[in-house]
């Protein structure tokens, strides 16, 4: 029976084809692959085609954590291949659906293996496990491209003849020519070679000569219908420890050279014969691998604000892989998905965490670029906690399973300015740490200012240390001390510069006011509130008309618009319900909103065309909303 190529594993590269920061171009079954190793060791096997405009990713830049396309600089994350940044639109987080086609990858016997199964789900049991190669360090032979059909190549490899390793090594050790010269074949040497095992894409041969014996496994990589690559692995390496040959002691490097040379010469000879015969047959039709269609979305919405997908969804299950005290009253949690891959985190994103006690809390991801196998959050124990942080601190331990949402990004990071100032207060460091790492690893200039009570309150010092001199900590400052540092930092508003701030309410207000006074435009100051400290006024009553639902509802004092909508069966997305996260922003068609949120900036408030319906109310007796 023919093997199903989509569940069969084939070698597509050698492990040493993937040196640091390199992208290797491979090919399997007529499909080009971009193969690269990230700095964390993970081997990525992707379709060799940027999904923006089809440029080969093998000419892209391996930045260690992300791969950058050469054409328009789109960035794709290690492991997930999710797009993390589209330079043409610095203000927008790329839509989650923008993700390259990935294939599973396994390294075994010095080779990189994959199968034609787009999506990265590894079928079956992985590449073949061969007893001959498990025993001692096997030696990879030079790979040999053969212009012939893979199935024929495999059949013809049964005729491969070679000399057992031990004998080759001995001969060089005594400075005698190996097998005399290229004209003297293995038959003349009297080695007896037989096929000792075979699979659907490989063949194992054993050569015996007197006491000496060695085994070689030849794997056939089907490049296309008429092209193959033979990748050989010699059991037992160059010292021939595999068989019963009992070789003497000699220089390992010279042995290895002699062995590699012998196999290369003999394999090349066989290749020539195979190609000769193949050239006399009609050439088969080239393979046409299915190109993956871009995931279905209207073309124009490839970029969108993540928050449109908002809502209270905690559909991912993660387990707590690690928890540790990262600072006074701050616990760090490392969350790993139970199976499969987590959605690609982008700088500034947060997740909703559903706690064992039923509460849902938002935490920013601390992840750096390419750190895609886990989510990292920092949780501060809030004295006035309604049970969120206390529950995490006191009851959640390693091994616990939590439900979380996909990452959402209300705080996306632009990377198009000459000056980026990141300002963090206390636990507000978390989103800014992911931003700082993104800027650091992609070589952008930035400065991170971290205000904390004391050295003991500084969280994630190991990450801060990895960032080096772009980080400044400001310890133990009172509000006026903080104020004067902020004044200094923001004294010189720069055209095209951007300020990002996250921290407690008063510090946020101070930063925003200082920035405005210094002349920074509203759109250059980005912030994320942790909790909304503004007193919410819900005393007024008014009427909302829902334009698309053809409903008019009274909003009594003491109830929010959102409460009223939900009570009447209208589904609305929300997250913080404190006017801080922007999830529930709704278009206003008529009427004058009374903004009570902290999300919109001054000019957006003046425009009055969107409002946060979880907290904001109405100045006019009637509001018409686009719902």
């Amino acid at each position, binding site marked *: 029976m023919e093997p199903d190529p989509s569940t069969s594993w084939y070698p597509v590269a050698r492990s040493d084809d993937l040196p640091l920061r390199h992208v290797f171009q491979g090919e399997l079954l007529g499909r080009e692959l971009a193969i690269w190793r990230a700095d964390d060791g993970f081997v990525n096997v992707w379709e060799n085609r940027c999904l923006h405009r*089809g440029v080969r990713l093998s000419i892209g830049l391996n930045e260690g954590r992300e791969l950058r396309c050469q054409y328009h600089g789109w960035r794709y994350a290690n492991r997930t291949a999710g797009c993390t940044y589209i330079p043409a639109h610095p203000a927008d987080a790329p839509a989650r659906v923008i993700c390259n086609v990935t294939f599973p990858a396994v390294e075994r016997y010095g080779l990189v293996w994959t199968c034609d199964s787009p999506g990265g789900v590894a079928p079956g049991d992985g590449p073949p496990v061969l007893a001959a190669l498990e025993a001692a360090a096997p030696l990879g032979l030079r790979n040999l491209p053969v212009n012939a059909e893979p199935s024929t190549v495999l059949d013809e490899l049964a005729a491969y003849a070679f000399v057992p390793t031990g004998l080759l090594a001995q001969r060089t050790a005594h400075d005698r020519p190996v097998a005399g010269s290229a004209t003297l074949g293995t038959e003349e040497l009297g080695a007896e070679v037989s096929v000792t095992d075979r699979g659907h894409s490989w063949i194992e041969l054993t050569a015996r000569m007197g006491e000496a014996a060695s085994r070689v496994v030849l794997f056939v990589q089907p490049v296309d219908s008429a092209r193959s690559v033979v990748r050989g692995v010699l059991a037992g390496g160059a010292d021939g420890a595999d068989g019963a040959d009992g070789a003497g002691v000699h220089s390992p490097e010279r042995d290895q050279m002699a062995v590699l040379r012998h196999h290369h010469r003999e394999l090349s000879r066989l290749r020539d014969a195979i190609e000769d015969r193949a050239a006399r047959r009609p050439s088969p039709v080239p393979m046409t691998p299915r190109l993956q269609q871009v995931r279905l979305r209207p073309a124009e919405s490839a970029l969108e604000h993540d928050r449109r997908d908002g809502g209270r969804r905690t559909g991912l299950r993660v387990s707590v892989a690690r928890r540790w005290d990262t600072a006074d009253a701050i616990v760090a949690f490392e969350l790993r998905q139970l199976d499969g891959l987590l959605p690609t985190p982008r700088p500034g994103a947060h997740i909703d965490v559903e706690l064992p006690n039923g509460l849902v809390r938002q935490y920013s991801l601390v992840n750096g670029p390419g750190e895609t196998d886990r989510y990292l959050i920092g949780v501060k124990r809030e004295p006035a906690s309604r049970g969120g942080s206390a529950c995490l601190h006191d009851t959640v331990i390693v091994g616990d399973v939590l439900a979380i949402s996909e990452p959402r990004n209300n705080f996306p990071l632009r990377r198009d300015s000459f000056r980026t100032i990141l300002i963090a207060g206390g636990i507000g460091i978390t989103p800014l740490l992911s931003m700082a790492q993104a800027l650091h690893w992609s070589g952008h200039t930035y400065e991170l200012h971290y205000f904390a009570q004391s050295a003991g309150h500084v969280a994630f010092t190991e990450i801060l240390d990895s960032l080096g001199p772009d980080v400044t900590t400001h310890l133990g400052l009172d509000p006026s001390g903080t104020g004067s540092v902020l004044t200094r930092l923001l004294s010189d508003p720069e055209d095209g510069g951007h300020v990002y701030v996250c921290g407690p309410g008063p510090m946020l207000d101070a930063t925003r006011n200082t920035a405005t006074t210094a002349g920074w435009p509203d759109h250059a100051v980005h912030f994320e509130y942790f909790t909304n400290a503004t007193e919410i006024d819900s005393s007024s009553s008014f009427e909302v008309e829902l334009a698309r639902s053809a409903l008019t509802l009274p909003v009594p004092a003491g109830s929010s618009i959102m409460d009223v909508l939900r009570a009447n069966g209208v589904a609305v997305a929300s997250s913080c319900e404190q006017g801080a996260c922007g999830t529930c922003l709704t278009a206003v068609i008529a009427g004058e909103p009374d903004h009570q949120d902290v999300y919109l900036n001054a000019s957006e408030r003046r425009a009055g065309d969107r409002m946060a319906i979880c907290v904001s109310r109405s100045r006019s007796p009637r509001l018409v909303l686009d719902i």
Partner: protein
Amino acid sequence: MAVSDTATMGTPSCTDPVALHEWYPISALVEITPGLVHRTQLLGGAISYTRTPGGSRPVVWPSGGEASGAEVDGLAVDHQLPVRVKFGYVWTTLGRPEHELFDIAECDEADRRIQNGGSIMVATSAPRAIENFLDMGHFPYVHTGILGAEPRTEVLEYDVEVTDEEILATRCLFFQPQAALSASDGQMTEYVYRVPHPYCVMLYKSVPTDASRMDVIALFCQPMTEERVRAHNFLCMVDAVNSDTALKRFQQLIFGQDKPILENQSPRRLPLDPRAETPIRADKSSISYRRWLSAKGLTYAVIPATAPSPTPAPTPAPTRSS
């Protein structure tokens, strides 16, 4: 893939009426030696051309057995193809276009420096080359330090107007660094792009010394086959300072940076289905261009939107168990 590249006789492999009944540039007039045979390809067919001895009249015909460089009397050639000379190029057609070639008003200005900035062969389709020309987003990455520079990578919203005759993109702004100066000394440059022909595109850019006038740079594509193009770089500049060679060299530098990118794009034919690739707002002009080609019913050098997904050829089993 290269099957259609092997045509040596004058039979075009193209059967697309939209592509057939269109004018194409085949050479800059000044680059044709009178009395000698020049050969090239158009729409998959081989064509020959020359200029009449002593005269300037170009003659174009479907290639017979004549060798490139052989002597020929243009006046005596049978089966001549229609010819136009415009913008300094010789244009021909394999069909019967009902329309004349588009105009470029600036070419009539007396002080314009008009020249061919190079005719360069690229292993891609003509529409891929056009789309690259329309694209500002690649400036910082492909023309680093010349037409763009990181981190100023934003493509601001611009306007696109589409009529049956042409596509016009206006208010196209992009940050352009000053060569060799600190990048922050750059400035926003405004471009206008115009596509008056399925395989021709031009940009207008204000003249550094006279803001009221626009330099015109165009790419006239000669589709040799569906997946091979000869791109004629047309320059129509107001420049009293730089020599012709300097202007040419600059254009060749820019195009030389685009060429390797174009040759690493797959598929080579332009996919017209909007979901085949991932457009973003910055690609507004390319989105319009693809829709415009679809509306014309063009099928040559593109992958039409309506085409069923390529049926996988009966895949020969890569390996066989014994």
